[in-house]
């Protein structure tokens, strides 16, 4: 993956930059020693690494503003970082950049159950937002797989989703307001506890902008009352196509499950070997979860199981207890870990129209043979957000490149059938060079013009999201 050549002038000024940053931050909040900056050399897309010039860990909005002001003045690129769990390389540094980590900013600032929101510092982890309100019977809905570790800042940057967004939406649908610092140090407040902007929907624009428009330091998030209960059903099929048809039929029937998860044979076998969830021996498996009171759950599952039965399932297993529910979910939740036991893998994130599922799965299978690389599919079927996991061997010369080419072909296929390159992980560096496959040059130019407004010098996370050639002129003019 190509990255811009580091600016020699900035590298030469490292000492001055560090001294200035130290002057506005508490002791220990500037990390410049080469042994320590290595900790920030990559995110969860660990195939690509580069230690930053230095890393800063501010504790509040004022410190973030002071840091950005200095970097703006000195022309130093800044790469914002939440918890570093990006699968797209969103927090990958360049050698001439300052990593701005929000991990020290994890306080709850306000909880308001009557108005159903929580205000937190953006470094707080996703799961601990729910942790702060669950005693009162509330939760924060977006639930990315990395929710134990990932920060709200990163969730906002990538507009993260999760398994339950078929019903509850993704981050942008659950975000009410932010405090954000622009690259020149200006602090802006967008939205808040009230609904819908009076002017342009800047909040909607900020969410999912991959840390390129500003650094979010505080977030007001919608919290929801917990449902009375939830229960999954597990359905096994002897072909991917039939499982895909079943998903479509469930949706058409008027029930709205909170989650419809899909796993294919390679994933089923890997998770069975790894976590022993007791999955059936079959080609494809669906986990469908519904919510409500016991009686409501029974009624909805009856409809779903009726539909499933028409598709000749090889297994139809309704959870009868908390333990059984946990076991059904155990396999799904350990799927990535299980695949990782087999080999290194690259996790894709394209979305397709649900109706194209069978065709796309068939094509991925064929490509797997052509490339000679194994692939497992585990994903959110209800919303068409696929996660093919392509297996490769990082120690084998040329395997990573082969895997990248395979991945690019899969993502192009997603676009071709009416979908998109990324459903919830973001573009980062990973899908940057495929943007021309989804957008025209004019479509991209319109997006670049938005960044021009927020960050005219193109210093914030500059080498991400857009093809390098599309941004070259702007990055050079800094």
């Amino acid at each position: 993956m190509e990255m811009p050549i580091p600016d020699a002038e900035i590298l030469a000024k490292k000492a001055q930059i560090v001294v200035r940053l130290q002057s506005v931050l508490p002791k220990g909040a500037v990390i410049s020693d080469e042994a320590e900056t290595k900790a920030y050399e990559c995110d969860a897309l660990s195939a690509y690494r580069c230690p930053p010039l230095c890393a800063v860990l501010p504790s509040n909005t004022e410190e973030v503003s002071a840091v950005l002001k200095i970097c703006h003045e000195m022309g130093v690129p800044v790469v914002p970082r939440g918890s570093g769990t990006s699968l797209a390389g969103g927090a990958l540094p360049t050698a001439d950049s300052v990593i701005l980590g929000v991990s020290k900013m994890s306080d709850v600032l306000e909880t308001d159950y009557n108005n159903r929101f929580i205000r937190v510092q953006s470094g707080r982890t996703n799961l601990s937002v729910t942790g702060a309100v669950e005693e009162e019977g509330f939760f924060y809905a977006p639930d990315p797989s990395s929710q134990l570790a990932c920060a709200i800042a990163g969730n906002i940057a990538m507009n993260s989703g999760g398994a339950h967004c078929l019903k509850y939406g993704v981050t942008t649908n659950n975000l009410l307001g932010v405090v954000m610092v622009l690259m020149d140090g200006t602090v802006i407040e967008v939205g808040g506890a009230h609904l819908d902007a009076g002017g342009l929907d800047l909040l909607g624009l900020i969410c999912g902008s991959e840390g390129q428009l500003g650094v979010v330091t505080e977030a007001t998030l919608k919290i929801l009352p917990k449902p009375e209960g939830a229960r999954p059903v597990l359905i096994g099929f002897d072909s991917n196509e039939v499982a895909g048809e079943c998903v479509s039929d469930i949706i058409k029937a008027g029930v709205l499950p909170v989650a419809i998860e899909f796993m294919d044979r390679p994933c089923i076998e890997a998770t069975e070997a790894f976590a022993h969830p007791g999955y059936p021996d079959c080609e494809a498996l669906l986990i469908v979860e519904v919510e409500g009171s016991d009686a409501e759950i029974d009624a909805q599952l009856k409809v779903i199981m009726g539909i499933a039965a028409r598709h000749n399932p090889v297994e139809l297993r309704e959870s009868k207890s908390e333990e059984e529910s946990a076991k059904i979910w155990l396999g799904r939740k350990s799927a990535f870990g299980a695949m990782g036991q087999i080999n290194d893998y690259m996790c894709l994130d394209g979305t397709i129209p649900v109706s194209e599922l069978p065709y796309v799965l068939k094509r991925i299978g064929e490509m797997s043979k052509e490339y000679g690389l194994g692939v497992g599919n585990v994903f959110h079927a209800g919303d068409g957000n696929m996660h093919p996991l392509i297996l490769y061997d990082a120690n084998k010369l040329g395997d990573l490149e082969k895997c990248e080419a395979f991945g690019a072909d899969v993502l192009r296929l997603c676009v071709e059938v009416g979908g998109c390159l990324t459903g919830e992980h973001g573009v980062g560096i990973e899908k940057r060079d495929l943007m021309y496959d989804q957008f025209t040059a004019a479509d991209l130019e319109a997006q670049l013009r938005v960044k021009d407004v927020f960050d005219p010098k193109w210093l914030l996370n500059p080498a991400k999201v857009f093809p390098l050639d599309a941004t070259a002129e702007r990055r050079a003019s800094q």
Partner: protein
Amino acid sequence: MTLKPSDEKQLSEAIAAAKGPLRIVGNGTRDVLCDGDMLSTAAMSGISLYDPGALTIVAAAGTPLAEIEAALKAQGQRLPFEPMDHRGLLGTTGAPTIGGVVAANISGPRRVQAGACRDSLIGVRFVDGRGEVLKNGGRVMKNVTGYDLVKLMAGAHGTLGVISEVAFKVLPDVETSACVVLHGLSDGGAVAAMAAALGSSFEVSGAAHDRTRTMLRIEGFSASVAYRAERLQGLLAEFGEAEILQDSVKIWREVRDVAPFHEAVGDVWRISVKPSDAPQLVAGLGANAVLFDWGGGLIWALMPLGADVRAKMGTVCGHATLVRGTGFARFQPESEPLATISAGLRAQFDPRYILNTGLMG
């Protein structure tokens, strides 16, 4: 002069050739008060894709809202956000278009549960002020590829570009609904009761208060609705004895369209605040009538002609829109530095400043 392009290419040519400001409308049911030649999207009409199994629909901007709602209903689905019909309130005629709904980010009572129009919108095509045809988002419901200009276009009131096509995530329609009604609550009591209801697990999809009745809507499968309505009735016992209405379609249509203000004289303001701030704000407003929606988060205020609602908001966070009346900017002026950012975005998308000039700032 009225321009009425019948496809995206003609729309692009019309904007590129414009010599002065354009007033962008669908069928004009939502009163866009701007100078310039009228540019209507009404001739760009039709549903181009509807995939019930994927919960998605795509249509040209000028497609009548009624046509979309009918197509969805035929498959047992609906737009989640319950868009308001402004004709009664504004005394306008014609068929509201889906493009107009999106441009103004129109949402109704269900906004409190299902989100606003912008939350269901998954893709747009539009023509910017240069005449350039652009797209963002698509037809899938999870998409984080590039910046989200879809949200930006929703509620931009045509000032960043003229929308030519929209795509939505839709939801299954419900089998039935019920309405739990409390009587005679004070504004404060009503907002507290609505907060208790919205904070329960019974999935309340409407919470409104007209100062006589406090109304809470439950929707879903019939057995489920009966169960939830009864549980909710019990939960709200501390606020008084609630009755359960089986048929409340008319009630919610009247809340959605602010029916009580249709024939009344006065300016109509729409105020968005944190629900718990609503009672006190209303107490100092001097309104002739008010209607609370969204659990109190949305206040419809019928004001004496020329009264300045914004001046009365004081330190309360939120914003007030003048929906019917004159004498004030329609939208709450943004404070710095947001106003600068918005102006910067407008300059990028509409460098000649010809699209609904001055409407938003």
